[in-house]
């Protein structure tokens, strides 16, 4: 273009022209929905404890139920609307992790069960798993060495 500004000037001009996300509103929504998801988890946890399950069992069962709910709501086309409203509030809890695996599985079903669902299922959750597991191994080694 007949340049009236350099690329740098244009980029800062664009930054000025582009509205920011409504952080205050997003944080509030994330807090409310994220909190609500945690309350549901806590409720299930309390019920299980009342039924006499031990702490370790309760932790596993609550995770399983929350993952199931996340997957179910994804399949019912509800979780994406929830995510649009709540942002990090529905991404951070374990239900969001289920959503990140089920949504590509649904999306790539048209490419078949092997190259579609199978290969693409972890396209979003994959990095979380790789670096999550790697970090836990590093943390484990450090813990092991410190204990010596």
């Amino acid at each position, binding site marked *: 273009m007949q340049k*009236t500004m350099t*690329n740098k000037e244009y980029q800062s001009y*664009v930054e000025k022209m582009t509205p920011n996300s409504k952080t205050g509103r997003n944080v509030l929504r994330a807090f409310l929905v994220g909190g609500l998801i945690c309350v549901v988890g806590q409720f299930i946890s309390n019920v299980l404890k009342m039924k006499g399950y031990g702490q370790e069992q309760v932790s596993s069962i609550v995770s399983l139920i929350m993952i199931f709910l996340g997957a179910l709501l994804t399949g019912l086309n509800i979780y*994406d*609307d929830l995510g*649009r409203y709540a942002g990090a509030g529905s*991404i951070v809890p374990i239900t969001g992790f289920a*959503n990140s695996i089920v*949504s590509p599985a*649904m999306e790539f079903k048209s490419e078949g069960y092997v190259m579609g669902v199978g290969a693409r299922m972890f396209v979003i959750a994959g990095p979380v798993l790789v670096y999550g597991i790697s970090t836990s191994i590093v943390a484990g080694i450090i813990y092991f060495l410190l204990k010596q």
Partner: protein
Amino acid sequence: MASKRLGKQTVKLQNPPSITSTASIVGPKEGKGPLRLFFDNIIEDEMWGEKSWEKAESKLIRETFSKILQKAGKTSQEINYVISGDLLNQCIAANFGLRESDVPFFGVYGACSTIAESMSIGAMLVDGGFADDVVCITSSHFCSAEKQFRYPLELGTQRPPAAQWTVTGSGGVLLSGKGPGPYITHITTGKIVDMGIKDANNMGAAMAPAAVDTIVTHFKDTGFTPESYDLILTGDLGAIGKEICIELVKEQGFNIANIYNDCGVMIFDREKQDTHAGGSGCGCAATVFAGFVYKKLMDGTLKNVLFIATGALLSPVSTQQGESIPSIAHAISITTSLNQ
């Protein structure tokens, strides 16, 4: 210099082709937008009876092609060329949608500028005496585009305010050597412009400099001014790109604010339909032109239109590799009367 060239990037057609027929088919969301009354057909759901979104998008192209012919009273045997492209990898919507058309085919890719690119080439083919009738057609589909360029549909994410919503729809035109108009008189072919914007969620800002470049070059090449037109329409700059475009064109001495609009801004009600900065995609400029603009040209509300479809020439790979977004804009000057 070749006799039909004008200035740096423009050609003046000596036998201006007529746009003799158009058709537009859009998705359900577009069918609830402000321009819903101008489209030929609104599909009820995004799959449209097909097994995948890609197949549905091919069907959009196929049905739009038939509709163009049907409205013009022509058969596919009378069409010399069809020029088409879309957003999907290897342009499968166009290639598969037109594989049964039995018409010589040029596949083109200009991202969201594809409709203006194909109309430019089509108009030159007709003007050059290489064809009597050429169909130019493009499509985009929200779901197939999201799948290829962004995230799975059911993933719960938030979009930033600058993000745009890919239009589900297909629009196309029939260009004929003989016809009563509206006529394509000038074509200004855009250059690739890259001002270093890297944010794939702010494509309006990435494409605006390309649109500005083409608009200003068009004025300089042809000697036209904003007063020569009653509508200057860009393809899919969206709300942010639109503001940038007006300001930067003004900086170069042309005030287009009163007669300028953008298809991406027009096609959705941004507030009610939650489309952030507006519509985008090949189908955006194509359906707004084939639906709204053509009908306004035919009923005489519009007489002189400068149509500039804009394209962001990125790919998911280039974005992941941290590249900026090269952009392009192709302009077509359209008039209802040749005696001016």
